C-alpha cells in the first residue's frame, strides 16, 4: 500500500469516528447515565472493536474474492456494490433497532458492528484496498489487517477525543447545532468510493 492509500484509510477512520451514530455519543450517554467519566472510557473499546470487526470482515471477504476472481471483475463488482449501497443510503433512512441504554460490553460491540454495517463503513474502504496489484493470499491478508488497523486507530483517536471533549467540556447541548446530517456526505462518499474503484 502506498502513502495515499494509508492516508485515505486513516482519513476514513477519522470520518467514521466523527459521526455521532458510530458510537461516541453512545459512550457519552452511558457516562452521563452513570455520572462517571470512567463509564465513557469503558464504553469506547467495545464500540471501536465492533466497528473494526465489521471493517475487517468486509475487507477479508473481498480479499478472498480477489484470490479467486479476475481483478477487473472484482473492481466492477465492488464498484457496483458500493455505489448501489451509497444510493440506497441517500434515498432511504433506516437505522438498526436493537439495544437500549442498559447494555453489556458485548451488546455494545454488536451494536457498533451493526451500525457500521448499516452505514456501509466497511464498503467505503474497499476501493482503497483494490489499489494494490497483489493477489497472493498472504499479501492480501496482511493488507486487510493493516488497513483495518490504520482505520481503527484513526477512528479510536477521533472518537475518544470527541467523547471526552463533549463529556468534559461542551456538554450534549452542542448536539442541537453541531450534529450535522452526515447521511448525505456519507452517501456521496460511498458513491465516490465506488466510482474510484473503477477509475483507479
Amino acid at each position, binding site marked *: 500500500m502506498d502513502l495515499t492509500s494509508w492516508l485515505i484509510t486513516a482519513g476514513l477512520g477519522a470520518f467514521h469516528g466523527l459521526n455521532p451514530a458510530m458510537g461516541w455519543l453512545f459512550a457519552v450517554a452511558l457516562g452521563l447515565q452513570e455520572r462517571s467519566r470512567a463509564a465513557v472510557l469503558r464504553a469506547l473499546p467495545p464500540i471501536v472493536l465492533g466497528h473494526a470487526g465489521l471493517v475487517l470482515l468486509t475487507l477479508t471477504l473481498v480479499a478472498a474474492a480477489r484470490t479467486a476472481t479476475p481483478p477487473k471483475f472484482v473492481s466492477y463488482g465492488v464498484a457496483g456494490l458500493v455505489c448501489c449501497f451509497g444510493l440506497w443510503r441517500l434515498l432511504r*433512512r433506516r*437505522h438498526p433497532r436493537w439495544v*437500549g*441504554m442498559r447494555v453489556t460490553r458485548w451488546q455494545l460491540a454488536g451494536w457498533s458492528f451493526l451500525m457500521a454495517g448499516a452505514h456501509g463503513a466497511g464498503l467505503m474502504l474497499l476501493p482503497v484496498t483494490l489499489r494494490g496489484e497483489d493477489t497472493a493470499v498472504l499479501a492480501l491478508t496482511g493488507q486487510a489487517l493493516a488497513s483495518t488497523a490504520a482505520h481503527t486507530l484513526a477512528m479510536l483517536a477521533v472518537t475518544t477525543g470527541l467523547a471526552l471533549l463533549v463529556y468534559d467540556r461542551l456538554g450534549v447541548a452542542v448536539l442541537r447545532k453541531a*450534529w450535522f446530517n452526515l447521511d448525505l456526505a456519507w452517501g456521496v462518499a460511498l458513491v465516490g468510493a465506488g466510482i474510484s474503484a473503477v477509475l483507479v
Partner: protein
Amino acid sequence: MLVQPDPTFYPSAREAMRGPRERHAYVALLDAQGEGRPDALATVDLDPSSPGYGSVANVTDMPVAGDELHHFGWNVCSAALCPYAPHPHVERRYLIVPGLRSSRVYVLDTKPDPLRPTLVKTIEPATLAERTGYSRPHTVHCGTDAIYVSALGDTAGDAPGGVFMLDHDTFEPLGRWEVERGPQRLHYDFWWHLGHDTMITSEWGTPNMIEAGPDLDLLVNRKYGHRLHVWDLRKRVHLQEIDLGDQHQMALELRPAHDPTKTYGFVNTVISVEDLSANIFTWYLDDGEWKAEKVITIPAEPADPALLPEPLKGFGAVPPLVTDISLTLDDRILLVSAWGTGELLAYDVSDPFNPRQTGSVRIGGIVGRTAHPGSPGTARNGGPQMVETSRDGRRVYFTNSLYRTWDDVFYPDGVTSWLAKADLAGDGSLSLDAGFLADFAGDGRRAHQVRLQGGDASSDSYCFP
C-alpha cells in the same frame, strides 16, 4: 431532510426548559351533540405580542363524525437524539390524532401552515384491527424507534388493551408491541424510563366498561383498574405488577421523571371507593424491585346533596376526581387536576416521597361552579381536566371536558368548554391569568387534550440527564 437536528429537539429536559416560549396550542375538540358534526382540532394563539392572543385562531374539522378525539401526539420528538437509535434530522411536524371511540387515527401536517394543520393520512379502524388486534387508540408517544400508541381494548371492546406501534416514516401500524403480557389485561396510559429500558403502563377499564358511562356496579365492586405494570422496553415482556390497592379505582396518567437517570414517577388514581378521595402514588425502583407508595391524598368535599348529580346524592360529598397530572421538565412541580371539585393544585415534588402543596386555583366544579377572574359574573361548569405545562415550567394550560358519557353523569347540565391558563411562579404558587380564556362556547364542542407547539411537558422523552 434537515442539515441540523430539528430545533425543537433537546438532548435533555434541562435544555428544553431554555427553549423559546410556545406560540400556539393545538386542542382536541369533541362534538357532544351526536348530530353528525365531526370533531376538530383547534389552534389557539399563545403569542402575547399577537392581537389574537388567547383566542381560537383556527378550527380544522375531521372528515367524519363520531371519533371522540381525546389524546394526541407528535410524530417525532427529542427521543430522536437517543444515542442507540439516532435519527435527529427529521421534523416534528405531524400530529398523530386518534379517535377514542371510532378507533380511527388521523395524521395532520402542521408544516405548511402551523395555525392550520391539514389532514394527510387516515388509518381506518379496520386496518388498525387487522394489524394490531386492538381498538380505541388513546395516548401517543414518540419513541426512539417508532411511534407508540396505547389502545384500551381488543376489537370486541374487551381486554386486553395494550400498546401498538406506528412506523416513524409511513405511519403504518406495525403491530402489537407486547411479546409477553403476563397478567396485564386492562390498559390506559404508558410511558417509559429510557435510561433504564423500562416501560410503565396503567389501567382504566375496557371500552365495554367505560363507553356507556361510569358503571357504579363495577366501581363499587372495585372492577376498574388499580395496578401499574412494569415492562422491559427492549424485550417487550411484562416484568412486574404493582397493585395500588383495589379501593383506588382507575389508575390513569403516568408521569415518570424526565431525567433518565431517575427511577421514579407519579400516577393518579381517580376515586377511592372507601372515602371518595383521589390519590397520587409515587412509583420507584428499590434494589431491583419496582414499588409504589401513596404520597398525596385529596379528600372529598362535603356538599349539599341537592347540588349533586344523581350518583353522588347519597354521599353528600363531591369527590375531587383527579383525572390528569403534569410534571414540569425539571421534575420539581406536579400539577394536579381535580375535575370534580374544580381545582388545579400544584405540589413541590423535589422529594418525590414528601410532596408539599404550593399552589391552588379554582374554576368550575360540580358544586362550586367558580367563575373565571376575567368574567367574574359567569358561573363555569366542568373543571380543570387535561393539564399541560410549558417547557419552561412557567405556564399551565388546562381544559374542562373529560369524556362525553362521563361528562354527562358528573355535569348533567352539560359542559361549556374553555381553555384556561395559570401562571406557575418559581415558588410553585399558581395564579389564574385573568386575561386568558379561550372560550369554545361559540363553537359548542368540548376541549380535551392540549399540545403546545414545539413540545411541552408530556410530549418528549430524553436520553440525556
